[in-house]
Every structure is written in C-alpha cells, then in structure tokens.
C-alpha cells in the first residue's frame, strides 16, 4: 500500500488526500439527504435571515481566508526566496557568516564584509572546471537602488538576453535591473553607501550612463543597477583590475591590480563540479557555500517555527470550528418556529434533521468557498506587499495545502453540524410553535 502510494505522482497524492479529507463531509451529506428534498426550504430560511446568515458566512470566510492566506503566503515566500537564489550556484567570500554573505550577495542586503583579494580571485578564476567567476562588488547606490559591480557575463547569467539596449562596454556604463529607477540613456552619479547613511557626493565627478535594461528575474536584482566592477573600483579611487594603460573591462583581471571584491559567484562547467569547487575553496582564508543550501538550512530552522505556527493555526481552526458550532446552535434557534411547523404538519424527524444540517452546511460551504477566495486575494495582496518591500518576487496562489486545509475544515464542521441538527429535532415542539 505504501509502495503504491509512493509510486503515485505528487498531484495524484494531493488530489487523493483532498478527496479523503472532503469525503467524510460529502458522504455525510449524501447520507443525511438521501431521498429528501430540503433545499427549497433551506433556501427560504437562508433568505429569511439573510443579514444574520450573511454575517455568519463572512465570519467563517474570514477565519478560513486567514488560514488559507497565511499558508499560501508562507509557501510563496519560501518559493520566491528560493527562486531568487537559484542563479547563485556557488558563492566564494572571505571567511565569515554564510548567511550574511548570502543576504548581501543574493538579496542585496548591504553589509560590511571582508574582501576576496586579487590573488584569491585569480586562483578561483583559473581553477579547472570554473566556467564563470564573477566578482560581486556592492556598497554604492543610486535613488535607493543598489549599484553593484560585476561582469557582463554575470548579467547574462543572471537574466539572459537584455530586455532593452546593450550591456556595458566601458567602466562608465551601466545596465539597469528590470525595475531599477533609471532609464536607458540616463546618467547618474552613485552615492556611497545605502539608505539614509548614503553619501550622495562621495563619488562626485564620476557618472555612469545606462545602456541597457535586464529582463525581470524575480529577485532583488531587478531593482539594482549593474556596472562593470572596474567602475566600482574606479569611483572608489582604487586600481582598475587591469594593468595601467589597459583599456578594457571584464576578466581576466590582473591580480596585482585587482583591489578585491566582497564575493565571487562561481559556476562550474558541470553541475557536479560545484561540489568539488566548494570543497576546494572552503579553507582558512576563504569560504565557499551554496546559497540554496544555506537557504534550505534557514527554511529548516523556520520549519520548527512553521510547525509551531501550524499547530497554532490548527488550534485556531479548532476554536473557529467550535465557534461555528456555537454560532450554528444559536442560528438554529432563529428557525426553530419554522422547524416546529414542519414537525406539526407531519414532517419526519429525519427531514427536519436534514433541513437543519443542510442549512448549516450551506452556511459552512458558502463561508469556506468565500474564505478560499478571500485567502487568495489576501495572499495576492500580501505577496505584492512583500515583493515591494523585499524585491523578492513572491507569487502566492492557492495550492493543494490550502485546499487540504479547507477540505478538512469543511468535513469537520459538517460533522459538527450534526449536533445542532440533533438538538433541533429534540426541541419542544409546542413551545417553538407558539414562539
């Protein structure tokens, strides 16, 4: 059985799980409603107290939507952050915190870091099996966007062919990220540093001209401005990475004239080669790591938090389900007179039971469906907010986990709705009739 389950495609497993979760509710519905036709009466009861019923549906929808939205958002954030890191095969930097280097180089969160020297870079670039060794030099900014020094090959590696214009060909040219606040043809002087601490005139006299724009990558690099690393060294008054008199940009760099770089993106000619390179560059004077692995470790760390959150979300759903139960029992009192009439004119108890259960089911299903929609909208809204704040493209949509949550919630609450239905047929007929 376990082998059969494991042999199923993931989608089939998810679909089967969703079906298993919703099945108790569906089967219960079929059992309660068998041979009966309570829906016209249920419709009348729903319309009779439409405001109260609507409010109740909204309450269910908000609680379901909250759970759905948070689940979808958490997954979207995880996928978005992983997607942003997927182009960064291997990062080599001076020894220190892998997380700090990853945040700085992948997510462009500025940080003071020791540098990889020219000699170290030369060694990395010359190592057999290295297809790309791109320096990543950050520290400057313009109009809130990071200005990052690198190579034209890195631009291509990161975003593929440019969406507009051409790549930089001199140390004074720049390529804008897809959403960077500059246009092709603009010239700007970079500020030293980032944010409120940026020194706007520190690099006065130096300017870059934007010659192209990258395609969107869904990463913080979309807001960055990429310049030749020689340009970064130049505006800081350092050597250009090439022997004096050399009039070109890009690798190979002359180790003697290379000032150093905070990080180097390394890509091996073969995928497996990255592992060998990581081992080779992990030593006392430098460190190498896979950002994807560090991210997975972070996600792993967060998994415990996520588990705790899931437990809390589960408890919350239980509380919501109990609230729904109490709410339904109160709502059933509203329709007690109609139910008493049905019993008085000869409706079987099973029919009255089915009416109450269907009434509750209609509220629960409407609330759950609306909750799914609300959750979707909330996840989209939160995604837009997170994307705007972090520049990591987060696209949270509804997935199987959300459907599982809602299917489970629906089944549990439909089962719980048996209680108000059971209580309703045990209410005193005459006193309800006289109400």
């Amino acid at each position, binding site marked *: 059985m376990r082998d059969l389950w494991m042999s199923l495609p993931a989608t089939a497993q998810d679909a089967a799980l969703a079906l298993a979760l919703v099945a108790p509710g569906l089967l219960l519905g079929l059992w309660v409603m068998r*041979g*009966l*036709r*309570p829906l*016209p*009466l249920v*419709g*009348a*009861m729903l*319309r*009779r107290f439409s405001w109260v019923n609507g409010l109740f549906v909204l309450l269910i929808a908000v609680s379901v939507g909250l759970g759905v939205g948070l689940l979808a958002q958490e997954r979207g954030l995880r996928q978005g952050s992983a997607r942003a890191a997927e182009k960064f095969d291997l990062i080599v930097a001076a020894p220190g915190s892998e997380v700090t280097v990853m945040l700085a180089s992948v997510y462009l969160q500025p940080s003071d870091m020791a540098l990889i020297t020219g000699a170290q870079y030369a060694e990395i670039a010359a190592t057999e099996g290295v297809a790309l060794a791109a320096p990543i030099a950050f520290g400057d900014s313009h109009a809130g966007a990071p200005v990052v020094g690198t190579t034209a090959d890195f631009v291509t590696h990161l975003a593929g062919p440019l969406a507009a214009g051409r790549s930089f060909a001199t140390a004074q040219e720049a390529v804008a990220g897809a959403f960077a606040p500059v246009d092709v043809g603009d010239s700007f002087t970079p500020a030293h540093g980032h944010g409120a601490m940026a020194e706007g005139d520190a690099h006065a006299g130096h300017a870059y001209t934007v010659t192209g724009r990258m395609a969107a990558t869904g990463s913080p690099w979309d807001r960055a401005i990429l310049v030749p690393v020689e340009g970064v060294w130049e505006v800081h008054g350092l050597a250009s990475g090439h022997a004096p008199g050399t009039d070109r940009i890009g690798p190979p760099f002359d180790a003697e004239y290379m000032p150093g770089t905070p990080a180097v993106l390394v890509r091996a000619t073969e995928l497996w080669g990255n592992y060998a390179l990581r081992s080779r560059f992990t030593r006392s004077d430098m460190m190498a790591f896979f950002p994807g692995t560090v991210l997975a470790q972070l996600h792993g760390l967060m998994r415990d938090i996520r588990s705790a959150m899931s437990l809390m979300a589960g408890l919350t759903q239980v509380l919501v389900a109990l609230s729904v139960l109490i709410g339904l029992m109160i709502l059933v009192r509203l329709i007690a*007179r*109609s139910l008493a*009439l*049905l*019993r*008085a*004119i*000869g*409706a*079987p*108890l099973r*029919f009255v039971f089915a009416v109450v259960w269907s009434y509750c089911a209609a509220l629960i299903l409407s609330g759950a469906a609306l909750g799914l929609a609300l959750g979707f909208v909330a996840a989209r809204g939160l995604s837009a907010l997170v994307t705007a704040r972090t520049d990591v493209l987060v696209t949270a949509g509804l997935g199987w986990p959300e459907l599982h949550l809602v299917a489970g919630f629906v089944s549990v609450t439909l089962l719980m709705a048996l209680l108000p239905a059971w209580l309703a047929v045990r209410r005193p*007929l*005459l006193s309800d*009739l006289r109400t």
Partner: protein
Amino acid sequence: MRAPDLRVEGLRVQSREGRVLLAIDHLALPGGQSLALTGASGAGKSTFLHVLSGLVRPHAGRVIWGETDIAALSEDARAAFRRDRLGLVFQDCHLFEELSALGNAALASAFAPRAARAPIRAAAARWLAGLGLGQAGARPVDSFSGGERQRIAVARALAGDPPVILADEPTAALDRANADALGADLVRLAQQDGRGLIVVTHDAGLAVRMTRQLRLADGRIAEDSHA
C-alpha cells in the same frame, strides 16, 4: 377517503406541576362531522386539539382515530399520521415568508415520498384556486393580507387530502368579514368531501356553523350540544 370516527377515552393531561389540564372521560365523534371546541381561555381547548393531533401526548387515556390510537404511537408515527390523515390550521398561519403562496400550500411535498410530490403540488394549486387565490400562487406570502394568508394555510392543510381538518382559532386574527368568509370556506370544503372538521374557536359565528359544539371548562366537557 372516508373520514375516521374519533373516540376519546379516559383522557388526562397534566401540567408539569401536576395540575389537570384536560380530563375527558369519553367522547365520540362520527367521521365527517364538524365539531367546535369552545370555552374560556385556559379551558383546555387548544390542549385538546394538540392531543387530538398528536402534538401532545396525554398522560393517560386513548385518542382513537378509526382504528389508530394516536396516543400510543411514537413521535415519528404520530408525525406520519398527521401527514397522512390530518390537516392542521393554526391561529397565526405559520407561513414560510420567503416562499410563494404555492410553495407554502405545497409545503408537504418537500418531505413527501417522491411519487406523492406532484399530486400534492397539483392539489395545493387547486385548493388555492378554490379559495380565490388561483392567480396569486407565485407571489411571496408576505404580500398577502391576513385573510389571504389564512386561506393559504387552509390550502396547505388540504393539499395532502386529509380526511380530517383540525383548526386552532383560524379566524382569531381576522376581521369580521374575513372571519365569516373563511369560516364558510372551511365548512364548505369539509362538507363537500365528507371531511371531519374540528375547530377551536372563540368566534360564536364560526362555532354555530359546526354540527356539534363542545364547551370546555377547566379541562372538562361542560356542555355538549348538537345543531
């Protein structure tokens, strides 16, 4: 369908505190007759009607419709008896406000066996027409006057073609003209098909339309008169 005879024997109904609400030693009503239950408020008229319809189970005694002692039946069996044999009309109509006149008159079709649903709807439409509401079947009931609403309730009671109609103060909420018209309709509809009709009423005008009047006092028969 022949209306069943009614026989009541040794009937006792008490309140929770033990006060006697109803004590009727013997009553016989031949099938197809009409009976008015009169008396002061609290005399036990409605309680008697509820016992006759199986809505209240007596503490002692038998209530025999034809061959069936309704007092001895289970709750579901009493409901089935009401569904098949009794048509109930209440003082304040008890209509589903969001349903049409026809939807209310044919309410029993919602829980009737599949084969009986269409006949009930057809009968409901026929009774609405017979009560002067034939053109208004599709209208929601909240657009009807009090008299019209009570006619819809009468059509609902008749839709299942019951041999007996039990009505609890059917004209109490109506003005004189409407009360008279409804009373006349009830008697006419009962008589034309040989149905039994038992009406609880304070309305002397309605009571005199019945072939027999039973005045209750303190839960006992104080006066039994025939027209």
